[in-house]
């Protein structure tokens, strides 16, 4: 049962409203928002942060925070790229995805081990491993921008359809990687909603001690979670370089903050326990529309950061305010 009160206490409707308002604003200022090719462009920009946000959201729901996933994505894709280039691999791109996911899994397992078994704080661990992975990439592998193997180039050229804007004679291709995003979202939805493992992630975020007493294997769940984040990051790495046909090791730098901000914007509670994929998708959508429409709105470059920052503060502020007000009403309840 969803009552009106419960519906508006959630953040999804508000983020959606913000997206609608922003879209209408962009349409009014540019006349270009609701064109097929613009929507395809936005969908394309959505793929990489969207993939990263899935794992990020799950970690925050579990009561942790991960700031290493972009470093994992970069290192996993870079090693994969180099190995495939040097071996002259000519085959299918699936191997690239599998390899990168595998490297991501290893790095995620390191995070998981430190967090689940040594019980170290997640922020400290992932700050550390994030630096470690980035350091390995630039130090041990002396990474610099590189070509990509033919399989990945070909994968990047796969197009689902082309949206043509006949007024301006512009067209945009929908990349096939969007299918990976859709697939991952669907799997994540099933995991979170219909498996005890997924419910366990929420339970741990709500009360770890209670989860343990209820019979959840908290360590195993955390281990699984950080491994999953690693795998998702590895897959994201290949998606990214295939879309640009170019492997730039610093391509993910700084993106973790955008993704975390978007996840929180989408209503995921920073202290854990609450968060939905719908909200996350909407949060990322809002951020990506914003980031890729400033020119369309006509905001000068020098103002774009201030504008983006203001939207994040207002958006997360609304979420924080909601949390604060529910807390307040609970305290009042206790007093009576």
């Amino acid at each position: 049962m969803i009552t009106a009160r419960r519906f508006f206490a959630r953040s999804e409707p508000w983020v959606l409203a913000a997206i609608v308002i922003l879209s209408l604003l962009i349409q009014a200022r540019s006349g270009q928002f609701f064109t097929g090719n613009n929507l395809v462009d936005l969908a394309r920009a959505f793929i990489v942060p969207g993939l990263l946000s899935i794992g990020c959201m799950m970690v925050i729901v579990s009561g942790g925070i991960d700031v290493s996933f972009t470093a994992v994505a970069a290192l996993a894709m870079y090693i994969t790229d180099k190995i495939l280039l040097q071996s002259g691999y000519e085959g299918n791109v699936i191997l690239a995805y599998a390899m990168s996911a595998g490297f991501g899994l290893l790095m995620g397992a390191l995070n998981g081990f430190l967090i689940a078994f040594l019980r170290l704080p997640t922020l400290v661990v992932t700050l550390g491993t994030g630096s470690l992975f980035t350091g390995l990439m630039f130090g041990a592998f002396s990474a610099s921008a590189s070509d990509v193997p033919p399989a990945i180039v070909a994968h990047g050229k796969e197009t689902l359809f082309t949206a043509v804007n006949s007024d301006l004679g512009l067209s945009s291709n929908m990349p096939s990687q969007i299918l990976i995003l859709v697939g991952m979202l669907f799997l994540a939805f099933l995991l979170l909603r219909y498996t005890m493992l997924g419910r366990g992630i929420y339970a741990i975020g709500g009360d770890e001690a209670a989860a343990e007493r209820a019979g959840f294997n908290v360590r195993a769940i955390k281990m699984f979670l950080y491994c999953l984040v690693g795998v998702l990051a590895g897959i994201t790495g290949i998606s990214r370089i295939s879309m640009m046909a170019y492997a730039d090791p610093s391509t993910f730098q700084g993106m973790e903050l955008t993704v975390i901000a978007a996840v929180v914007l989408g209503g995921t509670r920073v202290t854990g326990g609450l968060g939905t994929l719908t909200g996350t998708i909407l949060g990322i959508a809002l951020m990506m529309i914003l980031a890729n429409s400033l020119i369309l709105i006509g905001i000068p470059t020098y103002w774009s950061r201030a504008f983006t920052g203001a939207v994040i503060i207002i958006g997360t502020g609304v979420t924080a305010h909601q949390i604060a007000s529910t807390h307040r009403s609970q305290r009042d309840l206790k007093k009576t």
Partner: protein
Amino acid sequence: MASTVLKLEGIEKSFGGVRALKGVDLEIGAGEIHCLAGENGSGKSTLIKVISGVHEPDAGWIEIGGRRFTQLSPIEAISLGVQVIYQDFSVFPNLTVMENLALNMELMDKRAFMNYRRARSIASRAVAQIGFDVDLDERVENLSVADRQLIAISRALLQNSKLIIMDEPTSALTKKEVKSLFSLIKELQSRGISILFVSHKLDEVFEISERYTILRSGENVAKGSTTELDHRAFAFHMTGREFSAESYRPAGPRGEPILSVRGVSLRGCYSGISFDLAPGEILGITGLLGSGRTELVETLFGITQPDSGTIEVRGLPAKIRSVKDAIRKGLGYVPSDRLTEGLFLPQAIDRNAVIAVLDRLSNGFGFLRRKAVAETTLRWIRELSIATKDPSLPVRTLSGGNQQKVVLARWLANDLSVLILNGPTMGVDIGSKYDIHALMRKLASEGLAIIIVSDDLPEVLACASRIIVMREGAFVRELDPASTTESVLGELSTGVA
């Protein structure tokens, strides 16, 4: 006594050389409400964990439903019908009532997938057992504490429980909620379920339980039927100390008043309040919640400003516009909710103790003189016998009574003339309660003027040298504790004869 549900004999348990349980026995009959009492650190929690299978005993045996065990797993305990309701209820605040009720069952059944239809039917069944009317789709964090407890109880009942252990179940409940909890416990009893009620609150032990077991330092010190137990015996068993309950009399004649209150009023809170307070006196102000007692002392401490009336300190008119003013005039205040208002819980004990005197302990540059801090702290930790290994530990590591002493230490470190204590022993265990009472008497006899605000009538009677009863914002009567009783005070407070 009917058949036995649970029997423990000679249970021992040590943690790293510390003997927490030294051969404890416990026997609970079917359908019995049994109280397990003991102060903090007496071994109550360890014993519960042995019964629920969390800890494996080093020696002794456990008999449940006629079967004997030398050790139990948590799963075995649950399948034998033993359920624990922890102090924090072990609920998931972020999940719905439905999931909170169903998840444990589903995990017990080793399900890998979540079936919401099945969960809903489990949840409806759970709440129906105790006629608990709640929206299954509400998130638990939006429920009251009492409702969360009901969820924990309904969840426990799902597992075909024979024995429900409730760990300090009333600690966060209001009086009304405690009443309905007790009637629920009686209802469960009538269905043949045994309850092990863990508490250190005397009144509750008397009201709800039929039989009791008291632990002290990991040993059985008393057991029997509750009807044969009285206040003094209970306090003695709990603490191992004899307490005399004589009332406090200031030595010598009453001096000049240090604090004079003349006709102060605050709209909606209290009106026309006048009284004098002399050094060496303990003034008890009692009254029901909402009688204006707390608002009155908050005015004295400068938290609120009165609409009219005057306050004099040492015979001079005093304008107390802020807490700072009050402190400067030698007034100190210990609020009733020390947890949210008085202490910085994560901060170290010593820091908390000296926070009111930082000005005095800092040098000309505003830096703290660490040595002076350490000396002041140590002095008061000794004086108040605060039980801590290390003053640099955070305050939240202390028990309620010791936390209260830290708050006291803070004020005593500041040279005070008047100390106002609001609910000075609320939520404090018996031993500490007597310690605090003794301390108040000692401080008063040394010349401090004390006001205690409390609805704990025995406490007021035992400590105060004068008692003022408040009702609906006004003073009803002033009484001499030596010539009055609890029932008189109760009638005056409620206005019901």
